[in-house]
């Protein structure tokens, strides 16, 4: 069969002169749509700020004591997070906003406070790591926004249009579970645009051992095999062949966990292994999680 001839015929398809106009319109429309998304995200942040004010009031009653660096040029606050377990709790260590011509960043950095371990300096190490991660994220978000701002102006956008874009970044945390044994939480950052700039770090504090635990601590020596087997079974349960939405192993899909694979412990005490968006499945599936029965 002569595909060269078929391809020649294919390449003879005439290009209408409207094409470039329609492509330009699509580029402009995509730009406008982004503005609307940003407005929605801003509303979400407003809600969060309201909550923060309520929580800030609580600190007066509870009288938390944690060292806070107050030398920042930005307004800083400290307040108690929602009440949690008896031995350890997560508190907001720093809460502030950075606003410059490029981006608005709302920051709530948590710190782990263990009533007994505090003097042994263990949470300090964890807290240092959390702080460093958050600060690196904030720096990255500022750089990204600055680059985007410059490119926006360089390609003919006005400062007023830029302000309408209202680029915001958020650094925040959520407690995922808490009981007498464990306190699990996630610290995350996201940027309203470009939205792929997202980071999530999971931590599980062992109330008794006074340390951040690993998967091995909770599943035992054979944790890799136990987790892999469970995850493979759960992936297979989604369907076989092309019905299965996950990437196949040879196309970058799941092969094995390792000691670095993020996880948290849920209310049942089971570890839940987390894979970032796009890691083992199409982006439409978002972050994928697998509970591993102990």
């Amino acid at each position, binding site marked *: 069969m002569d595909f060269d001839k078929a391809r020649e015929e294919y390449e003879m398809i005439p290009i209408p002169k409207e094409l470039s106009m329609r492509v330009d319109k699509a580029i402009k429309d995509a730009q406008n749509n982004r503005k609307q998304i940003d407005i929605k995200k801003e509303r979400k942040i407003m809600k969060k700020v309201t909550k923060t004010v309520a929580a800030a009031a609580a600190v007066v009653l509870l009288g938390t004591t944690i060292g806070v660096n107050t030398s920042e040029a930005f307004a800083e606050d400290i307040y108690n997070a929602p009440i949690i377990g008896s031995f350890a709790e997560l508190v907001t260590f720093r809460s502030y906003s950075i606003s410059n011509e490029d981006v608005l960043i709302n920051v709530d950095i948590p710190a782990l406070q263990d009533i007994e371990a505090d003097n042994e300096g263990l949470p300090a190490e964890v807290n240092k790591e959390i702080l460093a991660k958050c600060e690196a994220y904030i720096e990255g978000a500022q750089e990204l926004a600055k680059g985007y701002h410059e490119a926006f102006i360089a390609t003919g956008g006005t400062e007023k249009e830029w302000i309408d874009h209202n680029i915001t970044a958020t650094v925040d945390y959520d407690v995922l579970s808490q009981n007498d044994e464990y306190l699990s939480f996630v610290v995350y950052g996201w940027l309203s645009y*470009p939205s792929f*700039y997202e980071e999530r770090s999971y931590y599980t504090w062992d109330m008794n051992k006074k340390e951040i635990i690993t998967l091995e601590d909770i599943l035992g020596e054979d944790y890799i095999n136990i987790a892999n087997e469970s995850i493979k079974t759960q992936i297979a349960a989604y369907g076989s062949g092309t019905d299965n939405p996950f990437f196949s192993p040879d196309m970058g899909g799941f092969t094995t966990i390792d000691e670095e694979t993020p996880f948290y412990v849920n209310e049942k005490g089971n570890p839940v292994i987390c894979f970032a968006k796009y890691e083992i499945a199409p982006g439409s599936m978002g972050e994928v999680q697998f509970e591993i029965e102990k």
Partner: protein
Amino acid sequence: MAEENYQKIVDYILANQDKFYRLAYSYLHNKENSLDAVQNAVYQALSHYQDLRHIQKVNTWFYRILVHESLEIIRKNKRETLSWDDLPEESYEETGFLQSESLYEEVNHLEEPLQSIIKLHYYEGFTLKEISLILELNENTVKSKLYRGLEMLKKKLKGEVAYGF
């Protein structure tokens, strides 16, 4: 960097728009629908550009969106109207024996995803691995479907010769 990526995607789109149009047209056989498909694909790509992790993959990534948008228009048209274009494929075969159809036309009458696989491979030069990413199929599936498509084309072309006599 994100903004760099965004600009690279825009540059890629501007440089390759003619190719996008041709592929869309080979599915839709109509100017307005093909322009719509390209416009939608560009819009969708830029709206979800953060889905593209590695700029080197922009080509397969964009074609996935383009093929999807083109097939989506065919589906919509089928739902909304029943025109001559939408009659079952056998109607083409019936007229096929009167005028000998070219290989190009026969490809356009193949079922999906055989049609896409052959176009992407022989017209756009994508490897089977790349096609598996564009069509979100297993690579072995792509291979076996390509062979099936080629078999069908062979039969059709031979069949016409026989009818011609």
